[in-house]
């Protein structure tokens, strides 16, 4: 798409683009290309020389049981976070949309977690569920429910899922609410006059009209769960106990920065790159559809 009336200038547009393009080239495109190149190399143990090994790093990574386990774990984690962040958000948005007044203060509280860093959200939940001083874990102890996320992998996983979902509900809530408020009230009134109850109105009118937003939010939430939750996991569990919460991004960071195994970390980065490209492509396809909608 382009404008009919434009300015004529030879040099100015390049000058205007220069800062953005310089940063993009130096800090985005070059490192991404380097990641691809490094993923094909193997360094010797002193890091002095490297050898071109084709796809050996990928073979090593994909046949590593720890990587496969991290992959499965990431799938469980991402689907859980997305569902737990989307369903309550939809429910809350529908309820807030129903209320005509008196919910401004409540709506404000509901959007506060958007402002909170994932790592900080992790800290809040870590504190509540801390086995020795946590408020919630104290209640669980008195009810006889065993709980120790520092030793039990399943408990740790539940904790990082809850913290990650809690932080993301606000975002989804805002989008669902905006979507609901864009639905013409006349449509719902017409259905009500025809005798459709509120449940029926939701499933036959509201939900189909919300489906583009829902679809968009599903991809955004999967991206969030894949990438942005690094802070939650690094702050709360450091991938433990015994790798129980080691997801793909955490593993790529750990193998690259802590274990300094560049080739293998780079191969993992490239695999993640494919994931983001796929998810972004899906997301932008949705936008094309919404424009014609």
């Amino acid at each position, binding site marked *: 798409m382009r*404008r009919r009336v434009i300015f004529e200038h030879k040099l*100015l547009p390049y000058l205007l683009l220069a800062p953005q393009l310089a940063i993009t080239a130096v800090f985005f495109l070059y490192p*991404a290309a*380097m990641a691809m190149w490094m993923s094909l190399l193997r360094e010797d143990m002193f890091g002095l020389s490297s050898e071109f090994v084709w796809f050996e790093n990928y073979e090593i990574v994909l046949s590593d049981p720890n990587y496969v386990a991290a992959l499965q774990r990431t799938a469980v984690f991402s689907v859980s976070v997305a569902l737990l962040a989307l369903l309550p958000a939809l429910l809350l948005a529908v309820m807030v949309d129903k209320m005509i007044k008196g919910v401004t203060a409540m709506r404000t509280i509901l959007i506060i977690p958007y402002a909170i860093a994932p790592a900080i959200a992790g800290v809040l939940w870590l504190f509540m569920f801390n086995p020795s001083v946590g408020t919630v874990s104290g209640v669980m102890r008195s009810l006889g429910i065993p709980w120790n996320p520092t030793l039990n992998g399943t408990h740790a996983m539940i904790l990082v899922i809850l913290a990650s979902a809690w932080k993301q509900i606000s975002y989804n809530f805002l*989008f669902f609410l905006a979507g609901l408020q864009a639905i013409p009230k006349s449509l719902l009134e017409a259905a009500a006059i025809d005798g459709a109850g509120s449940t029926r109105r939701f499933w036959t009118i509201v939900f189909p009209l919300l489906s583009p937003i829902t679809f968009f939010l599903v991809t955004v939430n999967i991206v969030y769960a894949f990438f942005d939750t690094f802070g939650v996991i690094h702050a709360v569990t450091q991938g433990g106990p015994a790798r129980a919460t080691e997801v793909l991004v955490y593993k790529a960071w750990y193998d690259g920065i802590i274990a300094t195994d560049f080739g293998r970390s780079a191969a993992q980065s490239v695999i993640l790159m494919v994931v*983001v490209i796929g998810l*972004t492509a899906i997301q932008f396809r949705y936008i094309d559809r919404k424009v014609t909608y």
Partner: protein
Amino acid sequence: MQTMNDRTQWVPILIITLGVAITAFPLWITFVASTLTNRMIAQGMPVLPGDQMIPNYMQALFDSATTRIVSPPVWSMMWNSFIMAMVIAVGKIAISIISAYAVVFFSFPGRMLFFWMIFITLMLPVEVRIVPTYQVVADLGMLNTYAGLTIPLIASATATLLFRQFFLTIPDELVEAAKIDGAGPIRFFRDVVLPLSATNIAALFVILFIYGWNQYLWPLLITTTASMSTIVIGITQMIGSGDAMTDWNTVMATTVLAILPPMLVVIVMQRWFVKGLVDTEK
């Protein structure tokens, strides 16, 4: 009919209240813990705040929030976070608005190529290029500097796309009128485009300030000295593995201080923020 009305009123109120409670409870507990002594926290948390608020916050802000590790006072970490958030927000807006202006209002060789180059950055978050990006920053001598913390994050496809979308809605007549009046591209940008973009800029500012303040992986990679630490990184280092040794009261005071600035920005600029959030993702 009366019972019907009652049901339709009470169910939403109940569910919203529950949602608000689940949202607010972790924040409330954190605030309460920040007003207690460590012994009070260990003995079982009360529901209401204690009387240690001022000493806890004073200690965290100006002394050190924990005796576990050598940690700079919280005000200096908040200052680092503030610089990072401001430079990223202002920088992203500045370079995105001019590059969108170039792409929309000019015709020149390479225009679409450059547009796609910017667009591709959407698909390259830090997480997929951790080691090489770190190496680039190290080679440029930008580790442990504000430049290293901010400049690599300033490129923004989303902000550029938002401004581009908005610029395409500016009527051609306005551009023609400006040209007839003899205004060049720079004057048109300053006198027409910039004022028209004020709402978009405000909305983006809120989102980008929060984005910058809440960064995690990037400062974790780029900063190694405590004096350059941002507050979000600082807190997780104070906690360690979250055992009984943690000074929970001052750490929780630090957590409240870390949440406060972005939270105030969201609450105060709520209207712009909601509009901006929904628009940028379109």
